[in-house]
Structure formats: C-alpha cells, structure tokens
C-alpha cells in the first residue's frame, strides 16, 4: 500500500459514508457494490462481451443490504465501480424504549439512542424476549452510505 492512499483514515467516522472506486472485473460474488446509489451485496456476477471482438463487461445482480431489494447493473469490466464501505459495529444493548427505539452503549461509554428495533420479526422478537429475560445482549449495527440498521445479535451469557 503506497502512502498517498492513506489520507482519509484519521477520523473515526470519516469512512462511514464513503465509497471507493474498484475495477469492475475484480468485484466478485459476496462483495459490496453501489448500484443506483444503494449499497448492495453482490449475489451474482457474470461476464460477457460486447460482440465477438468487443471488450468484456460485467453483469451484477446485487441485493440492497438494508431493504433486501434486488438491483442489477452492467459495467464494462475495465471501468471502476463504487464500492461502499460497510461497517459493522457491536454495541451492548442497554434499553428498549416503548416507541421501539433502542439504547446502545458505545465503546467510549456514551449511549447511542437513534436506532429503531429491526423490522425483521424474528430478530425483533429475539431481542425483545432476550432483553426481558435479562440476558446480556450485544447487537451488531451495520452501516453504509450513511444509513444504519441492526443486523445481528449475540448473547454473551445471562447476567
């Protein structure tokens, strides 16, 4: 890694909504990609050519990591695509408020109160029952392109 590429790493949240260019041909299945301004996980890549003696192009099928919608894109494989920075942060769950917001404990001791319970019923139920049973829960929050969502849950044992 050469030095000139290090210039954006000084602030903790600097990369939160950033995208990075990456050559389309190198983006493989299960990687992330921005399609129509949405962060997606690539579930299918196929390559083809523009005519027999043309150049290669990539056909991506991605799934929006927040909404689960399917999106598609075709890009010449030598061109760059935007790759979103997708981060997952673990927080300890402190409280669930009645209006469906959660209160989370950050690493430096502050609380983070701007997230709702997930829309997914299963996860939602697990969080709620787990919390009411007095279990110590750690939730994983996924963020990309400035958007956030609880995406996973881990039980680190009863209190």
């Amino acid at each position, binding site marked *: *890694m050469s030095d000139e*590429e290090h210039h*954006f*790493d*000084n602030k*903790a949240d*600097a*990369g939160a909504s*950033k*995208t*990075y260019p*990456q*050559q*389309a*041909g*190198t983006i*493989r299945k*299960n*990687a*992330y990609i921005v399609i129509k301004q949405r962060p997606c*996980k690539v*579930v299918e890549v196929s390559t*083809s*050519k*523009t*005519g*027999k*003696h*043309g*150049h*290669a192009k*990539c056909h991506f099928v991605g*799934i*929006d990591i*927040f*909404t*689960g*919608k399917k999106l598609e894109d075709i890009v*010449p*494989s*030598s*061109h760059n695509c935007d*790759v*979103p*920075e*997708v*981060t*997952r942060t673990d927080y300890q769950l402190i409280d669930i408020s009645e209006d469906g917001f959660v209160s989370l404990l950050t690493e430096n001791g502050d609380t983070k109160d701007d997230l709702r319970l*997930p*829309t*997914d019923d*299963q*996860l939602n139920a*697990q969080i709620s029952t787990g919390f009411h049973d007095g279990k110590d829960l750690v939730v*994983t929050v996924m963020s990309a392109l400035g958007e956030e969502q609880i*995406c*996973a*849950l*881990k039980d*680190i044992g009863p209190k």
Partner: protein
Amino acid sequence: MSCFFGGGLFTIMVASKALEGQGENQESAICTVAIRLMTQILNWEFRGKLAVLGKSRASTLSSSPASRKSSEQLQLWHDLLVSPAKVTWILNFYEHIHQKGNAWLDLPLSVVVRQLIVLMCSLNGSIFPTDGAGTQEQHLQRLLNCIISWIDPPEYVISAVLAGTSESEMLDGCRALLAIATLCSPSSFDQLLLSFRQTGTLSLLSSLTCGIIKASCVRESEEPSWTYEALEVLLETWTVILQPADLSQKVPLPPSGIEAASAVFQTFVEFEMKLSESSALDEDDADDMAAFSDEAREDRLSAVALIARTVPSVSLSLLTMLVSKCFSEIRQSLGSETTTRCLEQLHWLTILSGHVLADPGEGETPTVPESILAVSAEPATHPAVSLSFALIDVAQQSLDATFRTTLSPRMMEAIVWFFGRWVETYLMPDHAGRGPSSTPSGHEGQEVSVGVLFDGRNALNAAFGKDGGGPAVLEILVRVALTSLTAWRGEQVLQEYVSSRLLPALVRRRNVCVQLLSMGSWQELATVFARQDQMLLSLSDSVQRALSGCLCRSAQGLANADAANQYVKDLLMPMAASLAEFSGRKDLATFSQQPNVIHQVSCVLERLRGAARETIPRTQKAIFEVGVSIMKPLLVFMEIYKNQPSVVYLLLKYVVVWVDAEVVFLEPKDTTTVFNFCVQLLSVYSAHNIGKVSVSTSRSLQNEAQTEKYKDLRALLQLLTNLSSKDLFDFALHADENPDVAQVVYLGLNIITPLISADLLKYPKLCRQYFTLLMHMLEVYPEKVAKISPEGFSQILGTLEFGLRQQDVEVVNMTLSALGALGVFQYQALCKGDDGLGTQSRTSGGDDVLSHFLKLLMHFLLFEDYSNDLVEPAADALLPLILCNTALFEKLKQELVQRHQDVVSQERVSTAFHSLSKGIEITSTIDRSIRRKFRSNLFVFLNDLRGFLRTR
C-alpha cells in the same frame, strides 16, 4: 435358432412378393418385423453363444471334441447369415425399395433393411473362415456395391437432399462407410471400390466429405442438421482410418489417400473461413464463452487436425499463408468492419493451427506429431517452423501499444491459448539433441552445407531449441503474458488463459525455468508482483493465485535450495511485511474496514495461498518462514475482520493450504508452532461466531450468510484433517518428540463442534467431512477421548447420536464405526482392568454413556427403518457395546420378553436372543472371526425378530 433365421428369410421372400405390387400393407409390416428379428440375431454376441452351443452339443453327442464342433458350427452360421446368396438377396430387396424413390425411403421397412445392411458391414471375426480375410473382403465388396448407390455421385446425392429428398439413406451410407473403415486397413479400404470402379474408396470418401462441408455452408439452421450429423460420421471415419484404436495397426495412407485428405482439409478451411467471416459481427456472446470448451467443436477440430497431419506440407503451408494474409489485412485496414472479419478468421486459424501442430498435454508430455517431424526441410523453410513464426509474429506485434488497439481480447485469447499448447511441444524440448542424426546447435545447423538434409527434429531444434531461437521466443511469450495481465484491463477470460494455460506451461519444465529466471522480462514480472503494484492487484482472485503459484514454481530452475528459498522469500516477504505493517497500525479498526484495504488484504491472501499450493521441497522452507512471519497479523485480521466473512474465508483457506503443504516437512519444534497457531485461530473464529444469530431482510442474503458459514466450517474441518495427517508421516519418530496431534485435533473439534448446528449438517459435504474426521479420530486415538474435557466429550457423543439418526447411509456407517471403535477401546480397557473412558463415561445422570448407546442401537435395529447395508457395521458396533455391559443387555432382553403375554411369543424372543450369542466366545480381544460370526448371527436375529416385534 437357425430355423428362425431361415424361417425369417422365408417369410420375407413370401411377403416381399406381396409387397412389391402394393404399397404399405400388412405384408410390409410382417417384413419389417422379420427383418428386425434378423437384426436382433446379428446383434448377438456370437463368440459367447457359440462357445456355449458347442459345449452343450458336445456333451450330448459326447464323441467329437468341442473345438471341432464349434468350428463346424461357425461354418453353419456363416452359411446362414452371410452366405453370398442371402446377402445378395437382401441387397436386391433393398434395391427394389431404392428404385421406388423418395416416398419409400423413410418407411419403417426401408429403415430396418438399411439398418440390417449397415449391421452386416460391421460383421467381423470368426464368422468368416480364416482364409486371409478373402471371404470378408468379398462380403464387404458386395455390400459396398449396393451402398454406393446411396452416396454416389456425392454432388448429385447431396443436391438431391438439398432439394428435398430424404437424407436418411445418405446418412446410412455414411454410417456403413464408417463400419467398413473400422474393419479395414486404409489401403484395403481404398481397394474395395477399385475392384469395380476407376477411383478408390478414399477418393469417394473425400469427395463426399467435401460435398457435405460445402452443403453445410448452404444450410444454416440452428438445429443440428443432417449435414452436421453426416460430417460427424465422416470425420469419425477419417479418424478411424488415420488413427486406428490399436496404434500398432497404423499404416501409411496410400497415395490416393494423401490427395483425398488434402482435398478435405482445403475444403474445410475454405468453408470455415467463410463461416468466420460471416459470423464475425454476430452479437452472440454465449457462443463466445463456450468457444474452447465446446466438446463437439473440439472433437471436430481434432479430427480435422488429424487429416491435416497426414499432409503436413500442404496443410501447414496453407495455414501459414492464410495467417500471414489475414494478419497483413488486419494491419492495413485499421478499425473497420473488415478488421473484425479478419480478426475472426485469424482467431479461427490460430485455434486450428494449435490443433494441427500440437496435442493437448493434459497429464502427459506431448511430443511433436510424427508426420510433422518427418518433413525434412531447412530450419527456415520447415512448414511447422514457418507457421509457428507467423503466429509468433502476431504475438510480437500485439506488444505494440498502438497496434494493440486493433486487436481484440478474443484474438489475444486465441494467441495465448495457442502458445499454452505450443510451448509444451516445441519450446526448448528436453530431448533436444538426442535425435539420431541431430546437430547439437542451431548455429551449426545454419552452416551445414546444402548437401545435408535436415530432418524435422533438427529444423525444429534450430528454430526453438535452447541454443537456437528458443530464448528469443520465450522472451516474447513472457512479454505477451505480462502485457495481457496489465494492458488488457478487466479482460478476465484472457487473464485466466494467461495464468492457467500459458504461464503454467512455461514453468512446467525445469530447463525452461532456468532460462526464464535469467530473463529480464521474467524478473520484471516478479518485481511488479512483489511490489504489489496496482496493475496486478486488479486481477481477479483465481488469476492472483495462479500467477503467484507460477512465479514460485519457477524457483525449480535455480541451482540449489538456498537460492530457490531466497527467490521465493524475495517474492513473498514484501507482501507478508505489508500485512504485518497493516496489523500494527494504531487506527487499524477504521483503516482495515476501507474497501481498498480489504481488497489488498484479500489479494495478498490469495497470492500466499497460490504460492503455498505450489510448494515444492526446494522452496518449502521459504514458504514456511513466510507463513510463520504472518501468524500474528493473521490472528489480528481474524479478529478485526470478524464481520467481513469473505476475508475470513480467504484467511482460513490460506491456512488450510499452507498447513497441507507444510505438514509433511515439519520438525517437532515447528510442528508445535503450527499447532498452537491453528488452535488460536480456531479459538478466535469460534469466539466470534458462537451463538451469533444474524438476520437479514432478504431471504437470499440469509442463505448467502448460511453458505458462508458452511464454507468456513468446511475449511476448518479440512484444517483439522490436514493436521491429523501429520501422524501418518511421522509414524517412525518417537512419540515424545512430537507434540500430540490427537490432543490438538480433539481440542479443535471441541472448539468447532458447537458451531456446527443441525442446520449446517444438512449440507451433505460438511456432514460427511465432519463424521469422517470424527471416525478417524475415534478409531485411531480412542484413548485420547478419555482425556478431553467432560463438555467436549459429551459434545462428541452428542454428535454421534445425531449421526446415528441421519438419512445418509454413509454418515450412519461412519458413526457406527466410530461407536464400535469406542466400544472396543472400552472393552479392552475393562479386560485389562484399566479405567478406559473412566469418569468421562458417566453422564450427569450417572448413566454409562456406552450403555446409552447400546439401548439406542438396539432400539434402532429392532424398531426403526434403515437400509440393509447398515446391518453389518451395526453388528460391528453392537458387539463391543454388548460385551462392555452384558448385564444391561440381559435386562433389555428381559424387557423385550416380558412385553409379550403368551408363552409362545416369549419363547420366540428368547430363542432369537439365544441365536444372537450362539458361538460367540468371550475373550479379551474381538478378532475377525468373532465379528464375522456375530454379523451373521445378527442377520438371523433380525430376520426372526424384527418383523415379529414391529407387528405386535
């Protein structure tokens, strides 16, 4: 049987009379059936039948020896089946049908008669008297005389078919030719027709093939048409003639055959050139992707290449001429549609040239085709050399940045494919200079006076040998590889070809590697690679692996192990160092999550994996050191990338491959290092994944997550399996010198078993892999189980119980073997008075675990559904379990007996139990004979009892 055949004939004779007057009627149906019967009879395996026949007759007559009988029988059969009169009768019969014209050709009757005739063409062996094949030849001549009217004159027949006549007759004609060609040598095949015509069979075959090729130009339907089928059959005929299955039977073609072959080749090339020209602008890229893998196309090209090789001078010169012509046209007409047409033609010519010049080297060392080698010419004018240089010229020009824009990725793919194949056969061959009359170097070759004739080998050596033009060509090829990887951005197919065909071909042989390492271009490639230059980082993952592997492999060209190790270290250490640098950064948490960093880390992991995969004894040390140097960074990455499953997977895969490559070589001290590292890695992985529930709004993302987990676990199991193989290599060493493999693997199993959920075990591969490992461990190291932690032990037993309930027979089988191994261990320990599984074997309820399995297994055998194949392994598992706890077994028996009220049933159950233990002597060892006895007892026992118990 003979009556049958005669009877059949008789029926036909009668029926045919009726038939000839009228059209389709009952008689023709009878005829059809009768002829089918004859076809069936001809399809019999005569040798076997006759042997049986002869034997039985001999025993009834009991006078003459069987052999004489059978030869008499043969004569009898010959008279019946292929006597001239009968054959002629059938042929005449068909002749009548033939004359009735098109409407009759596809009637069932006509079809079966033709089938019969084709079948008669392929009759061979002892049915013909041993008179030097004279009878057989006459027989074939007779048939061919009739068949000829189906296919001759080719132009007339083909144009008739094009105009709408049914093609079935012509196709059967082709099939008959194939059948005849299989039985004859090329010259006798040619002679067959000469006996009653001016031209030989080969020229007929040739003009027929040419005609079909031309006709396929006219017809361009999507579906496999009759021209396609006919061409398949005819090309196969050529293959049979030119390359008989038994190579010792290979004889040169007669002169007329050479002409015929060259005509076919020229027509084929002409036709394909036209086709390429017209299809160049097609948008059909599905066809494009399958271009080289398409088996049918491959077969066809191989067949044509075989034809071309019989006339090397003609075919190679034609190809050279066309390649040069196309290429100069491409250079003149820059950027127009004509260029595309020429590119497509050149593309096709390149592929064909590859087939003609060289054989695919899969799994063996290809040699220069004999006929090409037999052409004697000076190095400069040898046709193979000229064609190679024409294509080398194309390759060289492709290096030019301005001209490159004229070429297409597809064209480059063909070039790279061609040289991948060509290199193994022609470039700096190992056997250089070993030929009978070879001159050692090309330079001397140039100076040899005109009077000395070159044979092909010398000419080729002078052009491409180590001391001839070899190094110069190699230089060009390395440059082509480098350019393809860097200048053709995003052309993955091309880059795949470079990394999986051309480069591996270059580093396969040691003498080529020696040359490579001394070349500037190779050094350049290695430097760009080691520097982690952006140009090469943008290659796809499989290309990264293959490239890295090839670079490491070339170390075999270095004179000693030290140099080789140093070379590999120079190649890989910079990358290992950058991983170490990353892992030591203060802002790692944010830095590491940037997509470009993730990309770079993934690339490096792929490269290291590719390098590890190509470990050779000579470079093992370097690869090991590199691996050790990144152990710490890898553990850090495992932690930091816990939410990036793709990186975790690559990391695990690298460790798996690395351990697999290294485990054979390791010293005890190093082994400890590796083992500790693996255990740490497993712990970190487990800590982050245990008890984690991820959900996602999308079902397909959910499935993906599941699949990722599954792949991770497979990699982990693979790692443990690789580790467990260490013991197999170090059998001879003292046990105390080596760290305890079993302990490590059990520890590993302990760590990952909780991660393997029942859901994941639904993946059959994972399930099998897991139980294979478990079985291996329990069979080889049962004593170690006694020492692992109680939780670990109960986990393992839990999975055994799970395994017993699986659907997959193989899994149940393995579970039973594992159980059996455990039982035998315990039983032997009991006999010796040892502790055996000791406290482990008591579960929390105070119950003995093996007793638990005994109950489970008895219940399984008596009351559940399972495949019969499982009874044997179940017996092997059951016996030691019973012996371990005879009291419990007795109790189970009593329970079963008392379930029944009436005395008769009780009697029956206890008799069955009695039969189970019949003949089993109890000793301290369970040997094979006891096992065998018990197996058969169990079968009897289950037969008696299972159905009875389940219905009551």
